[in-house]
């Protein structure tokens, strides 16, 4: 049982970083769909930097910076140029994913990749990033709901016209929310080789990026529920792996389906819960006379 809990908590961390990053961008109206590519980029950069420049901490920081660059491009293209968020997001997804494989290929080539040192345990058999991820969720909740700046950010994602009329800089808010959100996603990716595999591989993300989007919806775009949702997603993930190995009476495929079906059911039955930022995925044009 303790082993189950430990595994669940570890599996929760990448989901948390990526889903909270998605949430942060989304609350400012930027719907990032490049998670999968950003995680790959984070994983490749994190792995390579940890390997060549020594130290997981440096790896995590550089990965975050790489993610921030991609996030900035997304925010700029959708805020200043007002290009379609979804289209730009997908283009950046391909570019980030391609860059990740390419970087790995250039540095490591076709050789057997050396393993990087795993993150050291801090307390209770958990590494420091576990506490960072949970602390981040708590901080985001406090910041979004208990500070002025957080309320301003939320207002930008709900009604930018009203926010603009009250003197909030809509463009700047969207820019930095999109940038920081993408940096968090890359950190979530960088965590993967540092804890699970020790090496980078092109299939390392395995759909976790898309799941993080589902998680953001599952949690109603609120950090506290995303934390709970991440625990649920991770527990199902661990349970499915256990079912695959030892068998628990039901085929593991059906256990694996649960998080996806549960998300859909939450969306269907909990309409009040399933709040979505009103301006999610839309671009704000100050000059336009039509809101939305």
């Amino acid at each position, binding site marked *: 049982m303790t082993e189950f809990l430990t595994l669940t908590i570890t599996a929760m961390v990448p989901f948390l970083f990526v889903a909270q990053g998605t949430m942060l961008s989304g609350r400012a109206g930027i*719907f990032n*769909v490049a998670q999968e590519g950003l995680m790959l980029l984070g994983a490749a950069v994190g792995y390579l930097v940890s390997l060549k420049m020594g130290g997981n901490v440096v790896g995590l920081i550089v990965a975050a910076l790489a993610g921030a660059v991609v996030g900035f491009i997304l925010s700029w*293209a959708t805020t200043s*140029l*007002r*290009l*379609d968020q*979804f*289209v*730009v997001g*997908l*283009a*950046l*997804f*391909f*570019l980030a*994913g*391609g*860059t990740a*494989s*390419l970087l790995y*290929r*250039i540095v490591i080539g076709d050789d057997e990749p050396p393993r990087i040192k795993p993150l050291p345990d801090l307390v209770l058999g958990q590494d420091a990033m576990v506490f960072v991820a949970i602390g981040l969720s708590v901080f985001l909740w406090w910041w979004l709901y208990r500070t002025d700046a957080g309320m301003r950010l939320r207002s930008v994602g709900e009604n930018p016209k009203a926010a603009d009329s009250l003197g909030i800089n809509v463009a700047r808010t969207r820019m930095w929310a999109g940038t920081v959100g993408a940096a968090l996603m890359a950190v979530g990716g960088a965590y993967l080789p540092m804890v699970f595999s020790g090496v980078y591989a092109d299939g390392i993300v395995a*759909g976790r990026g*898309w*799941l993080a*989007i*589902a998680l953001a*919806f599952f949690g109603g775009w609120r950090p506290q529920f995303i934390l709970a949702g991440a625990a649920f997603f991770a527990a199902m993930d661990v349970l499915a792996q256990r079912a695959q190995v030892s068998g628990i009476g039901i*085929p593991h*495929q*059906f256990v*694996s*389906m649960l998080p*996806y*079906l549960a*998300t*859909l059911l939450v*969306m*269907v039955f909990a*309409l009040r819960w399933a709040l*979505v930022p009103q301006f*999610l*995925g*839309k*671009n704000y*044009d100050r000059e*336009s006379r039509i809101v*939305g």
Partner: protein
Amino acid sequence: MSNDVTENPGATEVTDVAVAPPLSQRARSFAFAAIPYAVAVLAAFVVVGIIITALGHDPTEAFRAVLTNSFRNQTGFVQTLHKWAPLTLLSLAFAIPLGAGRFNIGGEGQMILGTVGAAAVGITMSELPMVILLPLVILVGILAGAVWAAISAWLMESFKINEILSTVLLNFVSFEVLDYVASVVWSDPGAGGAVTLPVGEGAVLPGIGRPPMHTGVLIVVLVSVVAAVMAKRSVAGFELRAVGLNERASRLHGIRTGRVAVTSMVVAGALAGLAGAIEVAGVHQRTLEGVQSNFLLLGIIIGLIARGSLTAVPFVAFGIAVLEVGAGSMQRVSGAPVEIVLILEGLILLFLLMSDVATERFRRARASRAAKGALA
């Protein structure tokens, strides 16, 4: 969320619907549309060429390998067509709902269900003669894909659940369905891994030529012609674009917008299901884990590069199929890694978007100059 996005990429060419403009004007508007493409493709090749050079390989050699591999011999060409068929179908499955302003990211899941349906029929009824079995296999594949997409369409219409979310989630469910079918229900014990038993002989699409090209390619040619004509010349195609351009206005003019959106999703699912059935009946003769390949992502890229134009999709798909088939040969010949091709495709899309912005600014600047001239 996508109901009233004003800058909808799928709805760019509604202008030539009402009255056919004179030929010279059409030629000019074609040129206006072609210039961004040329610039984007050229710029992407230049940037990638610089990357290849920086990696210490010869870019001309790499580009020659990647572009000529499909045309040097029969094998390469047939390989390209076999890739082109599912790419075109999955890209149509993305582009058709895009026309109505909906994002179908579920082509993968719909295709997988198509393979499962087709394989189920092909395995359980393997004794049937080909005249009955083959149409049945294709039909069940189409149906399975359509039903899978209908779930998302229903959730979208009845519960206002974002279709991006539901289609992505159903993709993940479909992976598990495929795994269950291929490793438990009809598992091939000799194969090792999640692979089903082979389908009956009557379920295999006949091949033409040498090396054999499966006849599924011809089905796809037919489908893409029908889709392009329907989009331009039918009421359904008009309503689709109208909804994508302005949903509220369409509703006020009596178009049943909800039904148009749902239909577009179901048709998309049917096409993705057809892709699955063709992969089973033409390529693998069974279904297996990973049958979906990366067709969904490439399908989305193709749909976006084609800007949702169903006429352009098959041509763009052919270009991408050439790049994909040539990628391996490029790595063998020049040493430039295959990942370059993914970057190339992403850059073409990104530069296309940028050139849109540039064209728009250019047009606006010219319009304001003209306005000033009129005042003076």
